[in-house]
C-alpha cells in the first residue's frame, strides 16, 4: 500500500517535472541556437537537429502531463494518447528516433541518407492516413531506437562530438523507459535522471570532449 502511494507521488512529480523542465531545457537550446546564428551568421545544423529532437520531447512531455496527471485527464484521453496506431505518444517517439538517425547521418556526412528517416516515417504516416496500416510503427521505433543508441555512441566517440554523445545518453535513458515496462519504480527513477540530464545538457555543462563538431551550409 505504502509502495503504491510512493509510486503515485513519484509518477505525479516525474510528469510535472517533465512538463516543466524539458520545455525549459528545449527553450534554452533554442535560445543558444539563435544566439549562435546571430554571432556567426550561419545555422549550426547539428544544433538544429538536436533542438528539434528535444522539441518533440517537450511536446510529448506537455501532452503526457495533460492526459495523465492534470485535472483534465480522463481514461479515454489517456487511451487515445497511448494508442499504438499513431497516437500522440508513438508519433512523437517515432519522430524523435527519426531525428536521431538524421543526426547520425549528418555527423557522418552521408548526404544521400540525410532525410531518408523522415521520408520513411512520413511515408508511414501518409500510408496510415490512406489505409489505416500501422503495424510497422512499433517495430520501426524499436529498431531505429537501438540503431540510434549504438551508432550515436559510436559516432560520438569517433568524431568526439558532445552533442551526439548527449543525445546518445538521453536516448539510452528514454529508450530504457519503453523497454522496462514492468518495473514502475525504476522507470520513475530513470525519468528523474533524464530530466536532470537534459537540464545539465541544455545549460552546456555536458562537455566530455573539448572540441565541437560544426557543420554549416
Amino acid at each position, binding site marked *: 500500500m505504502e509502495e503504491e502511494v510512493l509510486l503515485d507521488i513519484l509518477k505525479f512529480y516525474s510528469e510535472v517535472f517533465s512538463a516543466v523542465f524539458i520545455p525549459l531545457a528545449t527553450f534554452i537550446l533554442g535560445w543558444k541556437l539563435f544566439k549562435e546564428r546571430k554571432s556567426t551568421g550561419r545555422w549550426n545544423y547539428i544544433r538544429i537537429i538536436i533542438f528539434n529532437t528535444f522539441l518533440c520531447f517537450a511536446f510529448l512531455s506537455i501532452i503526457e502531463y495533460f492526459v495523465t496527471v492534470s485535472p483534465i485527464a480522463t481514461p479515454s484521453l489517456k487511451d487515445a494518447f497511448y494508442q499504438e496506431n499513431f497516437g500522440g505518444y508513438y508519433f512523437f517517439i517515432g519522430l524523435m528516433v527519426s531525428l536521431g538517425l538524421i543526426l547520425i547521418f549528418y555527423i557522418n556526412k552521408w548526404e544521400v*541518407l540525410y532525410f531518408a528517416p523522415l521520408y520513411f516515417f512520413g*511515408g508511414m504516416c501518409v*500510408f496510415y492516413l490512406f*489505409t489505416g*496500416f500501422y503495424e510497422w510503427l512499433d517495430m520501426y521505433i524499436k529498431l531505429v531506437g537501438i540503431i540510434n543508441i549504438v551508432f550515436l555512441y559510436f559516432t560520438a566517440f569517433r568524431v568526439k562530438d558532445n552533442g551526439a554523445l548527449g543525445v546518445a545518453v538521453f536516448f539510452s535513458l528514454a529508450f530504457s523507459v519503453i523497454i522496462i515496462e514492468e518495473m514502475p519504480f525504476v522507470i520513475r527513477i530513470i525519468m528523474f535522471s533524464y530530466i536532470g540530464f537534459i537540464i545539465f545538457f541544455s545549460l552546456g555543462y555536458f562537455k566530455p570532449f573539448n572540441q565541437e563538431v560544426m557543420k554549416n551550409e
Partner: protein
Amino acid sequence: MSEQIEFFIAIQIISIFLLILIERSVLKKWKKNRNNLEIFVFFFTIVILMGTIIRLFNLIGLSIDFTIGGGLTLYFILVLITITFPLDFILYLKQLKRFYLLPMISSLYIGLAIYLYNLISIFILYAIICVIINLDLAYKGWKNRNGMVFMISIYVIINGLFPNKGSLFVSIITFFSIILLYCGSTSGFIDKYFFVDKEEKQRLQNIWISKILIEEKA
C-alpha cells in the same frame, strides 16, 4: 491462335530484339566513355526487357507472372521500377543527393499498398505525378539536345499515360515508344536529324568552304 494474338506476339518479339540492340549498344558506349548515363539506360532497358518478356510469355500461354498478397504482380514491380528510375535520374541531373531515396521509398509504400490492399488508385496517382515530372526531363533533353534523355522521358510519359498493356491500341503505342527509345539511344537518328547542333554544322560548313576556296586558289 487468333490473328490479333499473333500480331501482339510479333510486336513483343520485335520489341525484345530492339531492346537487346539497345543493351548491346549502350554497353559498348559505356566501355568507351564510362558515363553513368549509360549505366542508367542499361538498367532501365533491362527492366523494360523483363516486362516485355513477361508479356510475351503471357501471350503464348506460359504465364511467368505471379501475384503476391492483394495484387502485387511481378509486372507491377517492374513498372514501379520503370517509373522510379527516371525520377532518380532527374534528381541525379540536378545533383539533389538528399532526395535520391525519396522516389525509392515512395515506390516501396506504393508497392506495399498494392500488396496489402490492391490499391491501384494510388499507383495511378503516382504514375500521373511521374509523367508530369518527366515532362521536365523531356524539356531538359530537348533543351540540351540530348536524344537519349529526351526519348527515355517520352517512353516513360507514354507508358505512364497508358499503363494497361492488354489492349491492342496501347500495345502498338508501347511498341512505337520502344522504337523511339531505340532511335534516341542507339541509332543516333534523333541526334542526327532532330537535335542538330546548328553552330557545329555551320562551323563544319565554313571549314569545307574555306578548304574548297584554298584549293581553287592553288
